[in-house]
Protein backbone atom coordinates (compact mmCIF):
# COMPACT_ATOMS: atom_id res chain seq x y z
CA UNK A 1 0.00 0.00 0.00
CA UNK A 2 1.03 3.59 -0.58
CA UNK A 3 1.73 5.96 2.28
CA UNK A 4 2.26 9.65 1.69
CA UNK A 5 5.17 10.64 3.92
CA UNK A 6 6.01 14.20 5.01
CA UNK A 7 9.39 15.25 6.39
CA UNK A 8 9.91 18.28 8.61
CA UNK A 9 12.75 20.17 10.22
CA UNK A 10 16.11 18.42 10.14
CA UNK A 11 14.61 15.25 8.67
CA UNK A 12 13.74 17.04 5.46
CA UNK A 13 17.42 18.02 5.16
CA UNK A 14 18.59 14.46 5.91
CA UNK A 15 16.36 12.80 3.33
CA UNK A 16 16.57 15.79 0.99
CA UNK A 17 12.85 15.99 0.40
CA UNK A 18 9.70 17.25 2.10
CA UNK A 19 7.23 14.81 0.66
CA UNK A 20 7.49 11.24 -0.58
CA UNK A 21 5.21 8.35 -1.49
CA UNK A 22 6.40 5.16 0.21
CA UNK A 23 5.12 1.70 -0.65
CA UNK A 24 5.06 -0.86 2.16
CA UNK A 25 3.24 -4.12 2.74
CA UNK A 26 -0.34 -4.25 4.01
CA UNK A 27 -0.86 -4.31 7.79
CA UNK A 28 2.45 -2.64 8.53
CA UNK A 29 2.61 -0.91 11.90
CA UNK A 30 4.32 2.42 12.52
CA UNK A 31 7.23 0.49 14.03
CA UNK A 32 7.52 -1.54 10.79
CA UNK A 33 7.38 1.73 8.86
CA UNK A 34 10.20 3.22 10.95
CA UNK A 35 12.41 0.15 10.37
CA UNK A 36 11.74 0.45 6.64
CA UNK A 37 12.51 4.17 6.72
CA UNK A 38 15.85 3.74 8.50
CA UNK A 39 16.90 1.15 5.97
CA UNK A 40 15.98 3.44 3.09
CA UNK A 41 17.46 6.59 4.73
CA UNK A 42 20.40 5.59 6.96
CA UNK A 43 21.01 9.29 7.62
CA UNK A 44 17.94 9.37 9.86
CA UNK A 45 20.20 7.62 12.41
CA UNK A 46 21.79 11.05 12.85
CA UNK A 47 18.95 12.27 15.02
CA UNK A 48 18.23 10.77 18.42
CA UNK A 49 14.53 10.43 18.03
CA UNK A 50 11.52 11.51 16.10
CA UNK A 51 7.80 11.20 16.55
CA UNK A 52 5.28 10.06 13.99
CA UNK A 53 1.97 11.67 13.21
CA UNK A 54 -0.68 9.88 11.19
CA UNK A 55 -3.28 12.12 9.58
CA UNK A 56 -2.16 15.09 11.67
CA UNK A 57 -2.31 13.32 15.04
CA UNK A 58 0.57 11.88 17.08
CA UNK A 59 0.53 8.07 16.82
CA UNK A 60 1.97 5.15 18.81
CA UNK A 61 4.34 2.58 17.30
CA UNK A 62 1.80 -0.25 17.31
CA UNK A 63 -0.76 1.60 15.19
CA UNK A 64 -1.48 -0.26 11.93
CA UNK A 65 -1.25 1.93 8.84
CA UNK A 66 -3.75 1.84 6.03
CA UNK A 67 -3.81 2.84 2.37
CA UNK A 68 -4.05 6.61 2.00
CA UNK A 69 -2.70 7.51 5.43
CA UNK A 70 -0.53 10.60 5.60
CA UNK A 71 2.48 9.95 7.81
CA UNK A 72 4.56 12.86 9.10
CA UNK A 73 8.07 12.54 10.47
CA UNK A 74 8.29 14.91 13.43
CA UNK A 75 11.80 15.60 14.75
CA UNK A 76 12.04 17.32 18.17
CA UNK A 77 9.95 20.46 17.94
CA UNK A 78 11.23 23.95 18.78
CA UNK A 79 8.37 26.40 18.48
CA UNK A 80 7.79 29.38 20.70
Amino acid at each position, binding site marked *: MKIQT*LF*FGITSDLVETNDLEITISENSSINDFKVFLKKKYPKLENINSYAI*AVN*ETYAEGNLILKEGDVVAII*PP*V*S*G*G
Partner: protein
Amino acid sequence: MKRTSIKITSKKLDLQECYNFVEDDSCGGISAFIGTVRNDTQGKEVLQLDFSTYKPMAIKEMQKIADLALEKFPIHKIAIHHAEGMLQIGEIPVIITASSKHRKATFEACEFAIDTLKETVPIWKKEYFSDGEVWVNAHP
Protein backbone atom coordinates in the same frame (compact mmCIF):
# COMPACT_ATOMS: atom_id res chain seq x y z
CA MET B 1 -19.08 32.60 21.90
CA LYS B 2 -15.64 31.55 20.72
CA ARG B 3 -13.33 31.20 23.72
CA THR B 4 -10.13 30.39 21.82
CA SER B 5 -8.20 32.20 19.10
CA ILE B 6 -5.61 30.09 17.27
CA LYS B 7 -3.45 31.44 14.46
CA ILE B 8 -0.28 30.70 12.52
CA THR B 9 0.74 33.53 10.24
CA SER B 10 3.66 34.93 8.27
CA LYS B 11 2.51 38.47 9.19
CA LYS B 12 3.72 40.25 12.31
CA LEU B 13 1.95 39.05 15.45
CA ASP B 14 -0.16 41.71 17.16
CA LEU B 15 -0.22 41.92 20.97
CA GLN B 16 -3.18 44.28 20.96
CA GLU B 17 -5.19 41.84 18.83
CA CYS B 18 -4.48 39.01 21.31
CA TYR B 19 -5.37 41.32 24.20
CA ASN B 20 -8.61 42.42 22.56
CA PHE B 21 -9.67 38.83 21.88
CA VAL B 22 -9.50 37.79 25.55
CA GLU B 23 -10.64 41.08 27.12
CA ASP B 24 -14.10 40.91 28.68
CA ASP B 25 -16.13 43.00 31.13
CA SER B 26 -16.41 40.00 33.45
CA CYS B 27 -12.62 39.68 33.77
CA GLY B 28 -10.34 41.32 36.33
CA GLY B 29 -7.03 40.27 34.84
CA ILE B 30 -5.22 39.32 31.65
CA SER B 31 -1.82 37.71 31.41
CA ALA B 32 0.30 37.64 28.28
CA PHE B 33 3.42 35.81 27.26
CA ILE B 34 5.36 37.14 24.29
CA GLY B 35 8.26 35.14 22.89
CA THR B 36 10.98 37.28 21.29
CA VAL B 37 13.92 36.35 19.09
CA ARG B 38 17.07 36.54 21.20
CA ASN B 39 20.40 37.64 19.75
CA ASP B 40 22.41 34.75 21.17
CA THR B 41 22.24 31.06 21.94
CA GLN B 42 24.78 29.59 24.34
CA GLY B 43 27.02 32.60 23.84
CA LYS B 44 26.95 32.48 20.04
CA GLU B 45 25.48 35.39 18.09
CA VAL B 46 22.24 34.60 16.29
CA LEU B 47 21.42 36.63 13.16
CA GLN B 48 17.88 35.44 12.48
CA LEU B 49 15.49 32.53 13.01
CA ASP B 50 13.46 30.65 10.42
CA PHE B 51 10.25 29.02 11.66
CA SER B 52 8.72 26.20 9.66
CA THR B 53 5.52 24.40 10.61
CA TYR B 54 3.39 21.41 9.80
CA LYS B 55 0.62 23.92 9.65
CA PRO B 56 -2.65 21.92 9.73
CA MET B 57 -1.36 19.71 12.53
CA ALA B 58 0.22 22.63 14.40
CA ILE B 59 -3.14 24.43 14.38
CA LYS B 60 -4.83 21.31 15.74
CA GLU B 61 -2.23 20.91 18.50
CA MET B 62 -2.49 24.59 19.44
CA GLN B 63 -6.27 24.20 19.58
CA LYS B 64 -5.86 21.18 21.89
CA ILE B 65 -3.65 23.25 24.21
CA ALA B 66 -6.19 26.08 24.30
CA ASP B 67 -9.09 23.68 24.96
CA LEU B 68 -7.10 21.91 27.69
CA ALA B 69 -6.21 25.26 29.31
CA LEU B 70 -9.93 26.14 29.43
CA GLU B 71 -10.58 22.82 31.16
CA LYS B 72 -7.68 22.96 33.60
CA PHE B 73 -7.88 26.59 34.72
CA PRO B 74 -10.84 28.89 35.46
CA ILE B 75 -10.04 31.21 32.56
CA HIS B 76 -12.53 32.97 30.31
CA LYS B 77 -10.66 33.09 26.98
CA ILE B 78 -7.25 32.23 25.58
CA ALA B 79 -5.39 33.24 22.39
CA ILE B 80 -2.36 31.40 21.00
CA HIS B 81 -0.77 33.00 17.92
CA HIS B 82 2.47 31.77 16.31
CA ALA B 83 4.56 33.23 13.51
CA GLU B 84 6.10 31.32 10.61
CA GLY B 85 8.93 32.23 8.23
CA MET B 86 12.06 34.28 8.83
CA LEU B 87 12.17 36.45 11.96
CA GLN B 88 14.77 39.03 12.92
CA ILE B 89 16.18 39.72 16.39
CA GLY B 90 13.51 41.27 18.63
CA GLU B 91 10.64 40.02 16.49
CA ILE B 92 7.86 37.91 17.99
CA PRO B 93 7.45 34.16 17.29
CA VAL B 94 4.61 33.61 19.74
CA ILE B 95 1.97 35.47 21.76
CA ILE B 96 -0.32 33.87 24.33
CA THR B 97 -2.98 35.79 26.26
CA ALA B 98 -5.51 34.54 28.81
CA SER B 99 -8.23 36.33 30.75
CA SER B 100 -10.05 35.44 33.93
CA LYS B 101 -12.08 36.85 36.77
CA HIS B 102 -9.03 36.31 39.00
CA ARG B 103 -5.38 36.68 38.11
CA LYS B 104 -3.82 33.42 39.33
CA ALA B 105 -5.50 31.36 36.61
CA THR B 106 -4.25 33.70 33.87
CA PHE B 107 -0.61 33.15 34.85
CA GLU B 108 -1.10 29.40 35.13
CA ALA B 109 -2.85 29.17 31.78
CA CYS B 110 -0.19 31.18 29.91
CA GLU B 111 2.66 29.21 31.45
CA PHE B 112 0.93 25.90 30.77
CA ALA B 113 0.24 26.92 27.17
CA ILE B 114 3.78 28.03 26.31
CA ASP B 115 5.37 25.04 28.09
CA THR B 116 3.11 22.60 26.25
CA LEU B 117 3.47 24.40 22.92
CA LYS B 118 7.22 23.95 23.11
CA GLU B 119 6.76 20.21 23.67
CA THR B 120 4.00 19.20 21.31
CA VAL B 121 3.30 21.67 18.50
CA PRO B 122 5.02 20.69 15.21
CA ILE B 123 6.96 23.88 14.64
CA TRP B 124 10.71 23.97 14.06
CA LYS B 125 13.20 26.78 14.12
CA LYS B 126 16.53 27.05 12.37
CA GLU B 127 19.07 29.41 13.88
CA TYR B 128 21.19 31.41 11.45
CA PHE B 129 24.73 32.26 12.57
CA SER B 130 27.42 34.10 10.66
CA ASP B 131 29.01 30.70 9.90
CA GLY B 132 25.98 28.56 9.14
CA GLU B 133 22.59 27.30 10.25
CA VAL B 134 21.40 24.84 12.88
CA TRP B 135 18.04 23.19 13.50
CA VAL B 136 17.23 23.89 17.15
CA ASN B 137 16.70 20.81 19.41
CA ALA B 138 17.52 18.42 16.56
CA HIS B 139 20.32 16.82 18.60
CA PRO B 140 19.14 17.14 22.18
